[in-house]
């Protein structure tokens, strides 16, 4: 009886010890990374791209273990979800949407050991928070030049999501590009107040077409505007993914994101303890952002024009288009002649350049 008791006790202690050891071994070996999405990964846009990058990162880096949570509502739910993830021992949390920024900052303050990489964030300095968003404005300036040449009605239309500095940068860059080749162009923007509502996106696109727009683009997550453009015989550009097969006659081009080219080096740096939080804005040279192939309507002349701008970005100044003079929609001089918008100013952008028609001004 006594023997049996001792035997059980020893077994118990052994089991406890072993399980503890195995737990710590796993925790030390793997970098646990959680991705938080506020819509479904099947949106064929923003989160679709992030999740593809997540899979590539997971395969590429042996020491990384990833998981994801989709359809997380920003606000109290997101905060609770991220807290749970911290408690479960995740080392890195990637809230892959601008909507999560405020919630992520709150949680980051409480869990200083957990690292947060906020996609499309605007945070400048926190010890454990990094914001990242590629400078797709470069691509959008060039796409604006194409749009300015393509439009016959001198109206281009944007299906906007919410008023956010990063979206405004893209809309303004698109406008500046279009104006650089065609001073009569105006851009109409409809904000649908969400990044994901395929039906509202379509209705916004149709309203823009009725208001005269013949080149469309979107800040939202789905290809609904490409389908609408195909149906009504106008052109469309896209963000985040190549949406060509949704409208082969309408699709002009768009920006493409390869998030894994950011995730892999950053997670490596975190694993090797060489990571320093920053505002990470990789540009065309990094490969995180690129331009999709042109559709058949883009002439050689337009291609040469784009090539010229690209060369200027690569050799002279990556963001020459933010140079003054730039007027806002109300007629105020925002950037003086000879000056240029700084990265800080870009992160705080809350104005529309001259030529944009929006009801939010």
């Amino acid at each position, binding site marked *: 009886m006594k023997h049996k008791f001792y035997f059980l006790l020893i077994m118990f202690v052994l089991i406890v010890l072993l399980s503890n050891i195995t737990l710590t071994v796993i925790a030390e070996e793997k970098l646990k990374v959680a991705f938080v999405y506020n819509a479904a990964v099947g949106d064929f846009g923003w989160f679709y791209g992030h999740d593809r990058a997540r899979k590539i990162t997971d395969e590429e880096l042996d020491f990384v273990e990833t998981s994801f949570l989709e359809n997380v509502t920003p606000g109290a739910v997101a905060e609770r979800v991220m807290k749970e993830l911290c408690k479960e021992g995740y080392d890195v949390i990637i809230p892959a949407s601008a909507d999560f920024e405020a919630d992520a900052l709150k949680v980051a303050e409480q869990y200083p050991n957990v690292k947060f990489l906020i996609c499309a964030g605007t945070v400048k300095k926190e010890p454990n928070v990094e914001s990242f968003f590629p400078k797709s404005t470069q691509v959008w300036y060039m796409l604006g030049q194409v749009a300015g040449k393509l439009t016959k009605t001198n109206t281009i239309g944007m299906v906007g999501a919410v008023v956010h500095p990063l979206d405004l940068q893209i809309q303004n860059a698109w406008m500046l590009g279009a104006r650089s080749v065609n001073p009569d162009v105006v851009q109409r923007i409809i904000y649908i*107040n969400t990044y994901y509502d*395929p039906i509202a996106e*379509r209705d916004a696109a149709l309203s823009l077409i*009725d*208001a005269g727009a013949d080149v469309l683009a979107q800040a939202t997550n*789905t*290809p609904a505007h490409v389908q609408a453009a195909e149906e009504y015989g106008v052109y469309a550009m896209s963000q985040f993914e190549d949406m060509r097969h949704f409208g082969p006659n309408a699709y002009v081009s768009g920006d493409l994101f390869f998030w894994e080219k950011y995730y892999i080096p950053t997670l490596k740096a975190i694993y090797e303890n060489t990571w320093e939080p920053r505002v990470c804005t990789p540009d065309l040279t990094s490969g995180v952002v690129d331009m999709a192939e042109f559709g058949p309507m883009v002439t050689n002349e337009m291609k040469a024009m784009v090539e010229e701008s690209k060369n200027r970005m690569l050799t002279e100044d990556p963001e020459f288009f933010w140079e003054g003079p730039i007027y806002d929609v109300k007629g105020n001089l925002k950037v003086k002649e000879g000056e240029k918008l700084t990265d800080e100013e870009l992160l705080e952008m809350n104005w529309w350049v001259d030529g944009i028609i929006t*009801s939010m001004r």
Partner: protein
Amino acid sequence: MKEASKKLMDFRTIVWIISMGMTAGTPLLFSSVGEVLSERAGVLNIGIEGFMLMGAMTGFMVSYQTGNKWIALLAVIGVCCILGLIFSFVLITLRANQIAAGIAFTILCAGLSTILGKPFIGVVARDTFKKLTLSSLDKFPLLQLLFKKDLLVFIALALAIIAWVFVYKTKYGLHLRAAGDDPSTLDSLGINVIVQRYIYTTLGSILAGIGGAYLSLAYSPSWIEGMVAGRGWITIAIVNFALWNPLYAIGGAYLFGIFYILSFRLEAAGIAVPSYFLRMLPYISPIIVLILSKLRNKKNYMPKYLCLPYIREVK
């Protein structure tokens, strides 16, 4: 801004808004007529959002697999019929709380459509309801704008009128109304209340499914998770606003659609009202009409036995 105001006054734009509003209101018209029938029979079908989602998913899936939109529509009817029967069984035979069961059903169908629809996200639809070609109207661009729609828009309109004739002008319609207003009298006439409720709840579910399928086969031909985006809940508001009358439901659904489109079109014109307010427009409209109709007419049109299970009293 000058250009914007000029655009707003344009007659063609007004016709365009009405025309687009009709299309936008069509899925709501299908589901509203269905909900009117089921609420008239005394069953509050809160699960309508779920049925619409299942309809949208099934429609797109079958149309993609078979390449035939009509087979897809039949499949939608079949699936929603089965789901509607299960729903009726829970509500009518098991006498579950209609609101709790309805919400549970919505969540169940939302999850089911998400899981089953996963492989169909991002694929291009193979056969969809396209706009009719009306070459005889070529000379009248405004009429063409108004009537160049897909067939389902007109089917929905016809269905609402048929439902009105059925509810108010036929013997069976009287039975239907009695099932919601005075089931014990109906029972004493020898008509089975339970069967009545089963029929109309299932029919309501099927119509909701077709409304959902309209979204994925005609309106925005694709399947994307949660694409119904709250239209099921709006349906319930429209039915209230339509005073449980299928004919008024046409007005309710189209009015919602018109306000919905108007909010986008006004923004495209650059009107100086923030889009946060504009997006609210379609939701304000039923509330205003509801208040106005209440002020003018104090009568309560709600079926008296709505939400109450029928229990035959043994004396």
